[in-house]
């Protein structure tokens, strides 16, 4: 049975987390079923493979163009938002971002925050930060609401409660909300709706994420199905949007291909129920909408990824979650085992920039390199190459220049370096190689039966009596 985590899993304990998750049959069934369904839905949205490939290439270029002008676009976005009456804040770290949000809350003497889904606010651990300062945060996305009730973290960036089945949610609602036990999903959603409704208009502040920030018009675009995003950004007197600095696109029309790629890849929908474009606070003659709109632009390691031409591609991401849906590792261990806000393939390539490689060193290696993530990514991020690159950064000598990633060399070992150096010498000196092969084949009886992790699930390899080179030479000699 999966349990309610007292302390959230940490990325440094990935191996242990993964082993535990693999032993949880219920969890594996829940994920297998959900991922199969999501893969099917995505496939059905792209019946024309040619259109898909052209659109992915287009999406990639739109994102690459935005990143190639990122500082200018951020300034243009800010100027247009400010002209529209939106207040823009910049934060290098999550501490700064939290302090900005808390400062706004204090100015309004806010006690209660209602949140639409926002992964950046998870990155900030905003609920915890504000909670410790007497400001309650309530999640309003159904999935987020469920994981918050369980004191858990989302296990998927699009479907936060995907690790649970209806029975588990039924029990949770019964225990925590004192309602009748029902596994009827319609009824469960109605319970969520009724519980949350009043909170929308009691909240002092609404917090949301941003899917695309449009520089040309100074517009924040949010997609969603439930309507809680619209509620959170319309009903409370103050709206604070938090987002990463990479989310900006140049022109309004740029969102057209990205929107199509996002919703079709994420949940297999041609479009979400709502596409919500916010360009300012309530005007004098308007009767609803927040009086104040704030945008917090967060760096948190993104500028590190940006600094390197290859790693920069990480920032193409439009957070569709398709890479996790198609990942054989994610499907088997689920989202929590990673111990990071962003799980799965995207998490493995983005989290090292946020937390450094010291604690995330095992993430880039938690991949079979099957390539599925790179193949489905709607903006063509070469995830497998980036994983390989991060593996390299993790074993490079800590002091080697240039320094690309915080925590470089977290997996560096002198022994391993020496072994590889010896390996190279062996393989590049024919005489030495032949001698080693001769010794290896003649002494094959000395091969130990237990060679560490390799033999935990397999028998030890046994060298052949004679090497292929020898056999070939002999064969040619006979001709």
């Amino acid at each position: 049975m999966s349990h309610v985590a007292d302390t959230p899993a940490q990325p440094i304990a990935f191996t242990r987390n993964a082993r535990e998750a693999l032993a949880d049959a219920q969890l594996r069934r829940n994920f297998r079923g959900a991922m199969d369904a999501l893969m099917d839905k995505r496939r059905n949205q792209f019946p024309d493979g040619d259109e898909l490939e052209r659109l992915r290439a287009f999406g990639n270029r739109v994102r690459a163009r935005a990143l190639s002008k990122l500082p200018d676009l951020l300034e243009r976005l800010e100027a247009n938002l400010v002209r529209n009456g939106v207040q823009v804040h910049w934060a290098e770290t999550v501490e700064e971002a939290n302090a900005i949000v808390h400062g706004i809350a204090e100015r309004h003497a806010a006690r209660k925050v209602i949140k639409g889904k926002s992964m950046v606010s998870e990155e900030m651990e905003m609920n915890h930060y504000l909670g410790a300062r007497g400001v309650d945060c309530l999640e309003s996305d159904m999935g987020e609401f469920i994981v918050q009730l369980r004191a858990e973290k989302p296990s998927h960036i699009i479907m936060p409660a995907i690790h649970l089945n209806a029975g588990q949610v039924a029990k949770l609602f019964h225990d925590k909300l004192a309602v009748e036990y029902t596994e009827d999903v319609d009824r469960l959603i109605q319970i969520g709706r009724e519980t949350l409704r009043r909170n929308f208009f009691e909240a002092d502040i609404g917090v949301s994420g941003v899917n695309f920030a449009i520089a040309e018009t100074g517009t924040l675009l949010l997609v969603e199905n439930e309507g809680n995003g619209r509620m959170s950004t319309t009903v409370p007197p103050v709206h604070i949007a938090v987002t990463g600095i990479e989310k900006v696109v140049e022109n309004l029309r740029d969102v057209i291909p990205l929107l199509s790629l996002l919703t079709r890849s994420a949940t297999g929908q041609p479009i979400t129920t709502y596409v919500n474009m916010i360009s300012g606070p309530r005007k004098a003659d308007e009767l609803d909408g927040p009086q104040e709109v704030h945008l917090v632009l967060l760096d948190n390691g993104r500028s590190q990824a940006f600094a390197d031409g290859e790693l920069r591609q990480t920032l193409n991401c439009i957070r569709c979650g398709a890479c996790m849906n198609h990942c054989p590792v994610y499907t088997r261990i689920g989202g929590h085992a990673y111990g990071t806000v962003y799980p799965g393939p995207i998490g493995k390539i983005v989290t090292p920039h946020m937390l450094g490689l010291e604690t995330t060193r095992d993430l880039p290696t938690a991949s079979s390199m099957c390539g599925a993530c790179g193949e489905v990514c709607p903006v063509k991020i070469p995830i497998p190459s980036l994983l390989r690159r991060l593996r390299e950064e993790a074993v490079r000598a800590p002091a080697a220049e240039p320094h690309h990633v915080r925590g470089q060399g977290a997996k560096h070992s002198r022994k391993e370096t020496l072994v590889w150096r010896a390996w190279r010498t062996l393989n590049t000196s024919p005489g030495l190689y032949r001698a080693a092969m001769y010794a290896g084949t003649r002494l094959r009886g000395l091969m130990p039966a237990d060679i560490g992790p390799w033999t935990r699930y397999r028998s030890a390899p046994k060298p052949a009596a004679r090497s292929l080179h020898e056999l070939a030479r002999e064969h040619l000699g006979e001709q």
Partner: protein
Amino acid sequence: MNAKERILGKLRASLAGTTPVADDYDIGLVTDPWRYAADERIARLRRMLEAVHGETLVTTVAQWPQRVLEALAARGIDELLVSPATVHGRRLAEHVRAQDAALRLKGYENPVEAWKDELFFHTPASLTGTLGGIAATGSLVLWPSPQEPRLMSLVPPLHIALLNASEVRDNLFELMHAQRWTDGLPTNALLVSGPSKTADIQQTLAYGAHGPKELLVLVIEDA
């Protein structure tokens, strides 16, 4: 240096010596696969909306007010939130009077703060106009206004939307272009494609998550 200067400084240093990627926007790719013959357009829009539980009804300028009364009566609803300041609001009010129908019409006349409780708990249905529709995705375009504020299409459990057939475009690109969105966007612009929904519990689709449980679109054929 403040955070903004430091962030921008780092980004600029990283871009030193590079040239921006050219804008080779491929209009064909976002329009060609999403084109429909004139007689297919409305059918496509309806199909897409109905696939996500939206209800659609094709009607006429003369008939739509009666269709609204019927839809409300069929659901046992006797109160409707509708703006008295719009052409369609006035039209409906006249019709209700002429029919002597037992339907109370109320407007969104005060700032939301003044009547939250009533809006959230005692407003079963609303009617708004739309700016147009998109056939490709089955979407309605709404630009909320002082007459028809943002929450009107979100809070009541039933949302009835009027859509002029002539305002339905093939795809989002065409619509944005035709309506010159880049000239200036309102405080809030919306695409609405069906009633509110969620699949957050075990991938099972449920309607009426936080927004309307029902969306009824009256497509006005001759407008």
